[in-house]
């Protein structure tokens, strides 16, 4: 049984949705199962007719978000890039109705995203950033057997079509569903108004659905501009797909260089994220880990920073305080609800090994592919990369960057507020290196059919 089921049963919070759940793809609202097993498939359409035929065949197997909280598995979802829409033969006026950053693609937006140096698109895996990735298919399931079965169904749909598989990446199957650096992740998701589910304790007030799904009012009271025609845009959303390689050796070396005992290292690891590896937040468990708290969906996100205004529990620069500052005092006029993303983190490669210390360990294929989902995903990812990940100004810590997903500069540091004086840890490196990225449009089920019927 999935964690979502458990929480629904515990809170009795499922209620009628005002969203067209039968139209919205499941992956938008449905969290990954626990445990989770899945595969990302990246495809290139070689001729428009094959592309449209693929959509015709695939659509009946794509799950909607109806009853998303019941987490039935396995399921498939599908996204299409701008070059993919072109390859399908979408008319020019429709193509032009997509946002500029989407049309340009993630690699072309490297400057705005701060994807430079180690993260520069020229260092990406071969499949990415060249406009060749047209379609991204995601298979999610709660068992290896079901993963194979659903992937088999997806692959059968390619038979006889002029569509090439550019990359396939299995993910999940991690003991305890830990991420590549050994943490429980994916805990804090934005609550979506009208999605049929009350927020979990600590999730905050529900955010207007239009921030995450096209065609509904956003926080500003109106829907964000939608691709045209309406049938194509409505109930769709955008996905920022980012593939990270985790430099586990560098991460472990950093912990050992700055912690003499296991306890010191684990505290430092918790300070970097703002949670212990178990998921227990530092604000609620400041001194020692509390695995029972970490595992409890009703409690592991139920906090704010009102009693930690000086960052002595969760440092200002820690990962979760950056990604959702909640009620932290920010230096800039900011509405934190405008900069949230639905995250589907999918870990690949061997599980975290605390004894991996070599530079060779940094290159073992292991990391996470993230799907960042929002009706304005491109603008939000650019905002986060510029302001909350690769800068510290917004929260008053100068040039420091996110210790987990930031691109670190030479001689970077991480400040841990403490009594009587703060500790500044030097020599923090880039622990997660970007190895690929694409923007996808994740259409509604009706839009998938509409795309299949283009020109017919």
């Amino acid at each position, binding site marked *: 049984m999935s964690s979502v089921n458990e929480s629904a049963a515990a809170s009795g919070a499922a209620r009628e949705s005002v969203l067209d759940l039968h139209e919205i793809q499941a992956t938008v609202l449905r969290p990954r199962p626990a445990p989770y097993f899945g595969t990302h498939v990246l495809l290139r359409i070689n001729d428009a007719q094959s592309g449209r035929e693929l959509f015709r065949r695939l659509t009946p197997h794509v799950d909607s978000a109806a009853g998303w909280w019941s987490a039935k598995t396995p399921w498939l979802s599908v996204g299409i890039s701008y070059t993919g829409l072109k390859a399908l033969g979408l008319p020019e006026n429709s193509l032009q109705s997509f946002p500029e950053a989407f049309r340009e693609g993630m690699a072309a937006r490297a400057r705005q995203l701060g994807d430079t140096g180690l993260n520069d698109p020229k260092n990406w895996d071969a499949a990415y950033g060249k406009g060749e990735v047209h379609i991204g298919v995601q298979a999610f399931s709660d068992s290896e057997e079901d993963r194979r079965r659903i992937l088999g169904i997806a692959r059968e749909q390619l038979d006889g079509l002029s569509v090439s598989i550019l990359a396939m990446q299995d993910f999940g199957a991690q003991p305890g569903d830990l991420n590549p650096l050994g943490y429980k992740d994916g805990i804090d998701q934005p609550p979506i108004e009208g999605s049929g589910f009350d927020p979990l304790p600590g999730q905050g007030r529900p955010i207007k659905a239009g921030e995450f799904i096209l065609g509904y009012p956003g926080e500003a009271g109106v829907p964000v501009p939608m691709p045209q025609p309406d049938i194509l845009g409505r109930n769709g959303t955008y996905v920022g797909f980012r593939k990270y390689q985790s430099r586990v050796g560098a991460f472990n070396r950093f912990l050992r260089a700055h912690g003499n005992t296991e306890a010191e290292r684990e505290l430092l690891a918790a300070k970097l994220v703002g949670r212990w590896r178990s998921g227990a937040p530092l604000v609620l468990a400041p001194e020692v880990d509390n695995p029972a708290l970490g595992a409890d969906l009703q409690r592991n996100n139920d906090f704010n920073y009102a009693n930690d205004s000086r960052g002595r529990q969760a440092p200002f620069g820690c990962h979760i305080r950056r990604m959702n500052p909640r009620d932290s005092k920010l230096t800039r006029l900011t509405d934190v609800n405008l900069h949230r993303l639905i995250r589907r983190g999918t870990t690949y490669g061997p599980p975290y090994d605390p004894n991996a210390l070599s530079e060779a360990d940094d290159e073992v294929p292991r990391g996470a592919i993230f799907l960042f989902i929002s009706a304005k995903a491109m603008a939000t990812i650019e905002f986060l990369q*510029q302001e909350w990940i690769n800068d510290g*100004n917004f929260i008053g810590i100068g040039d420091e960057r996110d210790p987990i997903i930031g691109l670190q500069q030479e001689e970077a540091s991480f400040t841990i507020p403490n009594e009587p004086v703060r500790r500044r840890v030097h020599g923090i490196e880039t622990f997660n290196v970007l190895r690929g990225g694409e923007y996808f449009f994740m259409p509604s089920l009706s839009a998938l059919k509409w795309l299949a019927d283009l020109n017919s």
Partner: protein
Amino acid sequence: MSSQTQTASDKRKTGEEKIRELRELFADANEIGKQALENVIAELTSQVSEPPPAIESAGRVGARLGKRSELTIIVPLVPGGAKRLKTFLRSLGGNLSPGASKVGTLHDMRFVFFDNDTRLLFATSFDGDWDTYIDDFIALIPDYLDLMDSAWEGWPGIRSPEAKDYLIKHQITADGWFVAEPDLSLAEIQRQNRVSKAVDEFLDKIQ
């Protein structure tokens, strides 16, 4: 209305070529200008040969130096707009603090009325790109923006998707600009002020 901050051909010119070009142009200047150029020509020659980092573009329009961006807007005003805006500004003694301080990125702002109050020059400098936080402004201070900008002819309202384009259309990029500390953001300046005060208190205590 915007102009390029620096063209590629400007960058390629040698110091000697730049000085020659200046001499040619100042040949048509009056005696005051000609004499002034001759008086500084030696110093200028070394300056243009090794200029400081050029000002960069701040997104679609505007110039940027380090962390700081500049924005200059010249707009026609609607009838009665100047009077309303001036009265609003005077009601605050012409000083927009503390309201403007809340934004957290604004270093300065000025409102200059001219052409018999039919036009306005609005100039400001701030940290980062101006549109990064535009959605936050729309969410948190839309009425203050509309209160001021409703005096501007054709202002579509801050909530309109056309608002960004309106601002860009009326913005003119500076060709020259000076920032004493381009790498100090407002938050950093404020932090340094606090640190400096704390250090003084600490030193007082241990004496």
